[in-house]
């Protein structure tokens, strides 16, 4: 897999094409691409160790690596914690990692692709997330209201991944000005 070209299926106006990436037949598919100025082998290696994901994914409570292909995820959601065991379904070093939930509270799957951008433009990292919102449409609404919507979260998580890979840290502000005490 070399350069990434063309528009991905998840931005299609055709609903069926949009869902073609759902490995488990999930109802919602969301994708997002960011460019990261690091070699794709390095980005792949960091991501492939699933235990690292909790450093930049905000809603992960823990990911326990069980063996080469299985990991146990505990994630904060709109109505408490959700758990599942993820199975790696595709693994091409430096190029792609895909996984899907074998069992658990939420039907979901994911895929992360690493491709060279045009010269000088870094690696294009594309995350594709498919999920069945718990409690369907109402669950999705609650999630959006509480900002735990997987789409919002995954965009932010990707930004944090980019910050960590490019700068070695994740941008943050304390607000010593938030609570003046005089």
């Amino acid at each position, binding site marked *: 897999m070399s350069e990434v070209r063309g528009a991905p299926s998840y931005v299609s106006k055709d609903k069926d094409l949009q869902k073609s990436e759902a490995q488990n037949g999930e109802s919602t598919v969301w994708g997002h691409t960011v460019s990261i100025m690091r070699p794709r082998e390095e980005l792949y290696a960091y991501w492939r160790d699933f235990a690292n994901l909790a450093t930049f994914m905000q809603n992960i409570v823990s990911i326990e690596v069980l063996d080469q292909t299985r990991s146990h995820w505990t994630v904060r959601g709109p109505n408490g914690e959700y758990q599942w065991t993820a199975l790696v379904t595709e693994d091409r070093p430096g190029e792609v990692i895909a996984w899907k939930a074998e069992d658990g509270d939420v039907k979901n799957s994911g895929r992360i692709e690493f491709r060279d951008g045009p010269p000088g433009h870094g690696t294009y990292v594309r995350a594709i997330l498919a999920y069945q919102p718990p409690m369907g449409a109402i669950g999705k609404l609650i999630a959006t209201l509480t900002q735990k919507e997987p789409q919002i979260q995954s965009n*932010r998580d990707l930004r944090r991944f980019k910050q960590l890979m490019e700068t070695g*840290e994740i941008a943050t502000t304390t607000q010593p*000005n938030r609570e003046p005490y005089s």
Partner: protein
Amino acid sequence: MRALTWHGKHDVRMETVPDPEILNPRDAIIKITSTAICGSDLHLYDAYIPTLQKGDILGHEFMGEVVDVGPKSTLKKGQRVVVPFTISCGSCFHCSKQQFSACDNGNPADNQDLGQQLYGEPMSALFGYTHLTGGYPGGQAELVRVPFSDVGPIVIPDGMPDDDVLFLSDILPTGWMAAENAQIEHGDTVAVWGCGPVGLFAVQSAFKMGAHRVIAIDHFPHRLELAAKFGAETINFEETDTYHALMEMTGSIGPDAVIDSVGLEAHGLFGDNIVDQIKASTFLGTDRPHALRQAILACRKGGRVSVPGVYGGFLDKFPFGAFMEKGLTMKTGQTHVQKYLPKLLEMIGNKELDTTFLISHRLPLEQAPEGYKMFKSEQNTCTKVVLKPGMEA
């Protein structure tokens, strides 16, 4: 520590707040020795720019002494540094192109959604500005936390006084980049709207870059006098019809390049400006681009428009037809401060640039609220306010 905090339109206060701490490995903590009030702060003071929160510490022009460093900072305790107002990581795509004010990585991820919706891209991080730009506490305080301290701050050699170098933090590089964006060619006539600190540095920089003539436009006589000191011809827009004057002064060709260093709060009783003010006060429009409209109309065909002045939202009656039909080019943006620091520091050292002429007031930090009031209401004579923590009143 003591800090200047924002509480609403024309309401800024000195308060005691918790000291900043090192949060990331590349951070440093700076003890402020000098900090200034900027025209950009006035846009916040006038509540023109959204997403400020009560209690936010303002200030993006500051310098001081390094008092604490994270493990990955390259600074050393005791060094004197000037800090760019743009927070830049040095390693993203934009930083690799020296477009430091477009840095991807300074703004916390959770803060980026609104900017993405408003501008199509999240905004980059700035000190003491708004939550669209990261919500970083600013430097009108005794202490400030500086992220990416291995990339931004420039170390100042011993013996150079604060007043000589403080403006490296923003307005000097901003005036310089404004002139650079005007792509000045030998023999050019350059017109500069606004003789505030940014405009006055743009006047100086334009001459350094080879402008043959610079025409400075404002309505404050004292500010126009300062521009004239550097060799500019001046137009007082209250006494003279600016467009007509520019045409007569350039053989009806128009200036080769125009610089808008006024921004979104243009003054003046012009028809378009009054309509803009009514719209802004009733939230029907936002910015007041009178100067920019006039600059586009006056600029010669095929000329260049440089816009260091800040705009935040939407412009009404933007003369895009004139812009297109005359084949103009526009360059704008927050300043890529880091890119210009070494060269400008050297020029200050060689006395090639005068950086202190515009300081009209030096006040203790504790009097910052008075400083804001003066800079807002006495613009003719109050050209730049420098605040010094610990200074005797």
